[in-house]
């Protein structure tokens, strides 16, 4: 099989820096649009005279989750924890994966030929973080939205203009905006353009990479409402990456909490917010400022900052900042466990 060959070749290439790439393959379950199993993405650190690989930045280090059709999963965590890399790796946007599986509708994304991948791109789209730098300043808006539609021959030539008008209308843009350039728009409208660009291809699955972080509170609400409306209308599935927990709670059906490349906790939104289990999740939630002056909070303050993903701590990666650290945490990495139905946590505290 091509896959084992490739894995073997990879192993040979980097045997001096062995990557643990063992995982039990999952079987496809049709209720899930996306199944991610022990996905890893390492970035090599080059050094020395001949630029050989001297180490890895473990950006995504074995994450496992399943995403049901038509739902939204929120991915939260501090900056530098690998949220964005996870989103891009799932879409095969950052080169080859290091290990694990990504099954999109039962199809391993990384096994596709470039031609097949190109066809699949219409099904999985991404809305980028910063609407100020992700739009080409030299293209008019109609062209930004329509470029991919034309490339993929999704609509006949004569219907093209009407189709773009309709997509723009769905996203709250006016037809006369088509000939304008991105610099003529405000942040909220640019984000609408980014959404229109992603949705013009009729995707099934959209990665929203911090779509509202760069926007004002009142504009944020507009964009969040728009995303929800479109989800209902087109039965979209979202992977919603954000560091704003209140937004994630509002929009998501399930939530994954990432820390240093690992998914430390994952489950239904209500379960996670009502009953956070992992010490990191607890600390993260206690840090959310509540807009009520009378709210008294007991804040768990995390000491220090996030360790380097190039040289992560041994055992459980969170043990250096954890309030409940035990001797065992320093040597042994915990496994993912199901505490309640659908609520998974990676922590030694919950070993029975």
């Amino acid at each position, binding site marked *: 099989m091509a896959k084992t060959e490739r894995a073997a070749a990879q192993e040979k290439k980097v045997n001096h820096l062995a990557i643990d790439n063992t995982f039990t393959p999952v079987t496809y379950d049709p209720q899930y649009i996306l199944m991610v199993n022990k996905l890893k993405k390492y970035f090599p650190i080059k050094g020395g005279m001949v630029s050989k690989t001297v180490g890895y930045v473990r950006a995504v280090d074995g994450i496992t989750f399943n995403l049901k059709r038509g739902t939204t999963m929120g991915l939260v965590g501090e900056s530098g924890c690998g949220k964005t890399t996870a989103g891009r790796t799932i879409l095969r946007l950052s080169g080859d994966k290091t290990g694990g599986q990504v099954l999109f509708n039962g199809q391993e994304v990384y096994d596709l030929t470039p031609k097949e991948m190109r066809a699949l791109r219409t099904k999985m789209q991404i809305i980028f973080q910063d609407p100020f730098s992700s739009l080409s300043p030299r293209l008019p808006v109609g062209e930004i939205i329509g470029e991919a539609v034309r490339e993929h021959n999704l609509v006949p030539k004569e219907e093209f203009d009407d189709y773009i008008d309709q997509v723009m209308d769905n996203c709250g843009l006016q037809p006369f905006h088509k000939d304008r350039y991105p610099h003529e728009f405000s942040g909220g409208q640019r984000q609408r353009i980014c959404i229109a660009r992603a949705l013009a291809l009729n995707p099934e699955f959209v990665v929203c990479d911090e779509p509202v972080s760069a926007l004002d509170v009142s504009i944020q609400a507009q964009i969040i409402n728009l995303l929800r409306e479109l989800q209902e209308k087109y039965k979209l599935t979202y992977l919603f990456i954000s560091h704003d927990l209140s937004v994630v709670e509002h929009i998501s059906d399930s939530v994954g909490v990432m820390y240093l490349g690992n998914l430390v906790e994952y489950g239904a939104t209500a379960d996670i*917010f009502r009953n956070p289990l992992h010490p990191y999740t607890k600390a993260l939630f206690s840090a959310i400022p509540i807009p009520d002056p009378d709210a008294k909070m007991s804040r768990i303050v995390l000491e220090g900052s996030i360790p380097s993903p190039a040289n992560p701590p041994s055992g459980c990666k969170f043990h250096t900042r954890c309030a409940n650290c035990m001797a065992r945490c320093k040597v042994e990495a915990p496994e993912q466990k199901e505490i309640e139905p659908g609520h998974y946590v990676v922590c030694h505290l919950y070993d029975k």
Partner: protein
Amino acid sequence: MAKKKAEGYLSGREARRISKENRRITNEFEKQHKRKNVPESEYLTEMRDPNNTVEFDNLHTYFFTDAGTVKAVDGVSFEVPIGKTVGVVGESGCGKSVTSLSLMQLLQRPQGQVVEGSIRLNLGDKAYDVTKMPTEKMQHLRGNFMSMIFQEPMTSLNPVFRIGDQVDEVIALHHGEGKTKDQIKARTIELLEMVGIANSEGVYRMYPHELSGGMRQRVMIAMALACSPRLIIADEPTTALDVTIQAQVLDLLRNLKDKINSSIMFITHDLGVIAEMADYVVVMYAGRVVEKGTVEEIFHHPSHPYTIGLMASKPVVGKQVDKLYSIPGKVPNPINMPNYCYFKDRCEMCVAGCEGEYPHEVSLSPTHKVSCYRYYDNAEKGGER
């Protein structure tokens, strides 16, 4: 052939006329600022209430741009009491930052000018009007009496100098007389420790790129606090940071404020942070204060439709709503402001009076003031103008 002119289109002749006019106005102001040996009596003033650190009184800050005059701050009045934190909230472009820059005299000159009103600073034994002070004298106030924590720690540190040198410079300039280099260094390290940097000796020798966002923000805070200022202006100090780091920085600011007993003017658009930090809240919209009061009044009884909308549009952890409220429309064009209430076109609670001129301030309680026609009845009963 009538070619349709886009909104805001200016002919070349008109643009030239505007810029010529602007130059005339700004040159006038610049002359005032650049004077030397200005007698103190000219900018000496009286505080309205000696318990205030700063009083903004009917402040107007305009930007004279080539496309027309932008009234960035248009009649803002509020005060910062000694030892208290005042939160200033509003959307981007509402004039929050320009208000604080007017106070520091750090406006982009010559285009940006304070054209009317006064900012009274309480120096203890005397009070100064910042708007009338020449640039030369301002330098003694900045850093010593008031200092600013800037928005983006990534861009406000100089990338080519070591952290230690940058903090040293502040101390040497303001409190450096008679101090040796070693004394200044000792003070810098003390400051870095005060803001919670563990490896302070190491950080002293580092360059900004070697630090994370939270650490850089701490360095910015250390610089701002170097001379124990009586007033700290924090311009969105946590916007670029993660929630966990934000919690650390907010705790730090609160503790330090108590330690050196200073006031904080806290500018942000995050209502959660305001609720946690502030004693008083000022809500700004399109260059004007629409509502102000204590933090309890603003959060429990938001009165201006804009404040109510702002509160409703923010998702809150633990409160599930089906659809978020979003304020319809957008902020009016700052060059052609309407002559009625600026919020009227977006307001869903309009009353008959809204057609009239911009509403004056109505007192709902001694501390709670709102500019809205909906409360004019209350004003007749007990409020005053």
